[in-house]
């Protein structure tokens, strides 16, 4: 008995050591094997900062990319889009990431003799999530109805504005409990931007930004805070980032597109919303209410900012390699974590932007052609 008790830590320690050893040998073996496939260039560490929305995706991509270039450690800080633009402006990061395109005053703040590229990397969406007992099929809602809910004009689930769009659905005489984000968020910016486009009353009373003065409801921090707020509250309703909504066990509404169809959010319908994207990205570029057939209306994208005139050869090479890979092979990985890929034609256009990166005037070509 006594021996056993003393032996246990030793066993655990031994097991841990074995694991560590296994992990080490694993990484070293992959690095040697992939080192040979990527033509010798091992990459170098990159620093990026910005959008919290993009963080899970960039993390996944950077891990996968280590198979190609084992030294390309991408240190991405999800400090928010505003912070990403500030860091990019201050030239303290190798790339910045933002959910909102650069605005004219932000472009004015950039270092004067620097050219930059701005390209989308993946698509996402914001969904209307709810917790209503006895409703099994997705609710169908249009923009006016949803903005009326968030304005406090509609307070009951069995309001005529909701029931008229959902014949046959038994909606209870229950108050709608609105939950919104309390922290500043790109998700809020997309959601309020869409509400402003849908409802003149919303546009004049509230407007669109990363945080607004909410007419009704309670605030919760983060997507998980909003999701738990909705699920805890009978009659709860709120908005969530799509990648989060699929994992939360909540009702998600089909939303009326400009052509009159109700569209459910899915990887496919979100990807279609990117159909109208073109270069160059302008400060008012948006993929809300896309005219593409079957596109989900409340879709968004996230952008990367890179200065084209680089001075360090290995940083420039890794930047080009990583983003080229992300826009080609990496696109197929987006669905693993519920982001939508860019439309393939548009991804090819984005590659042309990446190709503008140069070192002291000499263009940088990707190390190993992919795709």
């Amino acid at each position, binding site marked *: 008995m006594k021996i056993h008790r003393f032996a246990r830590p030793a066993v655990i320690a031994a097991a841990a050591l074995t694991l560590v050893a296994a992990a080490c040998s694993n990484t070293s073996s992959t690095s040697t094997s992939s080192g040979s496939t990527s033509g010798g260039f091992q990459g170098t560490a990159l620093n990026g900062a910005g959008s919290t929305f993009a963080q899970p995706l960039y993390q996944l991509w950077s891990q996968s990319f280590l198979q190609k270039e084992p030294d390309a450690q991408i240190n991405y800080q999800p400090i*928010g889009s*505003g912070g990403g633009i500030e860091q990019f402006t201050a030239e303290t990061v190798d790339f910045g990431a933002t959910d909102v395109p650069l605005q004219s005053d932000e472009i004015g703040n950039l270092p004067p003799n620097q050219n930059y590229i701005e390209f989308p990397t993946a698509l996402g969406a914001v969904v209307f999530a709810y917790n209503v007992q006895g409703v099994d099929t997705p609710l169908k809602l249009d923009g006016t109805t949803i903005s009326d809910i968030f304005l406090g004009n509609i307070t009951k689930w069995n309001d005529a504005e909701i029931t008229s769009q959902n014949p046959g659905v038994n909606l209870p005489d229950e108050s709608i*409990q609105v939950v919104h984000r309390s922290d*500043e968020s790109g998700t809020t910016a997309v959601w309020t931007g869409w509400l402003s486009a849908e409802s003149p009353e919303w546009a004049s009373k509230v407007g669109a930004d990363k*945080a607004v003065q909410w007419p009704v*409801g*309670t*605030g919760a921090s983060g997507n998980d805070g909003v999701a738990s*707020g909705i699920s805890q509250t009978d009659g709860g309703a709120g908005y969530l980032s799509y990648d989060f909504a699929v994992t939360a066990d909540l009702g998600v509404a089909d939303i009326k597109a400009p052509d009159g169809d109700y569209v459910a959010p899915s990887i496919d319908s979100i990807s279609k919303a990117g159909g109208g994207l073109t270069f160059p990205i302008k400060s008012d570029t948006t993929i809300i209410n896309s005219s593409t057939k079957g596109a989900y209306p409340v879709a968004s994208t996230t952008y990367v900012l890179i200065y084209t005139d680089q001075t360090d050869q290995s940083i420039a090479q890794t930047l080009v390699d990583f983003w080229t890979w992300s826009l080609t092979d990496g696109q197929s990985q987006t669905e693993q974590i519920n982001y939508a890929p860019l439309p393939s034609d548009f991804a090819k256009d984005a590659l042309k932007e990446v190709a503008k990166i140069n070192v002291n005037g000499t263009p940088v070509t990707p190390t190993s052609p992919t795709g």
Partner: protein
Amino acid sequence: MATIGVPPHADAPAAPLTRRRRFGDPAFRWTTLVVSVGLVVMLALLLWVLADGGWRAIREFGLHFVIGRDWNPVAGRETYGALPFIFGTAVTSLIAMVLAMPIGVGVALFLNESGAGWIKNPLAVLVDLLAAIPSVVYGLWGLFVLVPLFDHTVEPWLSASVGKVPVLGGLFRYQGPGGDMFTAGVILAIMILPIVTAVTREVVSVVSTETREAAMALGATRYETIRLGVLPTARPGIVGAGMLGLGRALGETIAVALVIGNSTNISASLFKSGYTIPAVIANEFREATSAGVHRSALLFLALLLVLIALGMASVSRLLVRRTARLMGDDVAAQEEAASSTLGLA
């Protein structure tokens, strides 16, 4: 030490002692002086940074910032009024004080005065353990346990019973589900309980045996001894304990942000969602850019919070000293105990 030869036996310890004192005392005095001045400088720098950062908001909104009720960070229609946050901070802290003071003092008296027996040590340890729980854990527990419990049971019951009382009832009018100021106040009460209890125990334990014996000698029961002898003597210390608790309640951030509902209401009902100064700073600062006045407004709020906290600390000092003076010189030890515990925190 260039003494030649062996010094006389008696002088041996004396000489190095005076020497050491000559160098040691000034060195000690200077070190402590530098450290204390550094502390003051740090506070001044802190205030300066906040005032400097908040200057834009101060210039743009002035007094309106403190009395305004609109908090709108939307670009192009920015307006910042902090009244809902000041209100929420005051109300939640007040709820916390009302709940935690009687319980904290009661627990302290139970532990120290009632001869609690076997339960004394486990209870004391448990109360101290409350202080060791990180505030984010309190917040999560509040969000997942307390909020639903209050929504479905406590608040409907309170509004059906106390809510019927004419004037007081307005405070307990049911507002539907979701986080609210009352839940936040209860969480805060639990969080400040350990500090109130610990400081009260400390000051109760230094009440002189003579005071107790005098009360006993007059035929007082144990309860009367506490009421007539112990409590009045310990009052300055207990006030100090309350002020320490209040200080923590005012500044608590994450636990409150998780349960208060984060909306800018000013409502008579405690069951309405609200917002506090620390919560709004934590929620909005991360993504606030310096493009508009938003970041500046948040820094101004931080300055306001620091000023409120400094004001509370000064008032508590005054209160402790005043009650001590009123009590006469028998409580000199009390004052010392109270101010030393205040100083410790």
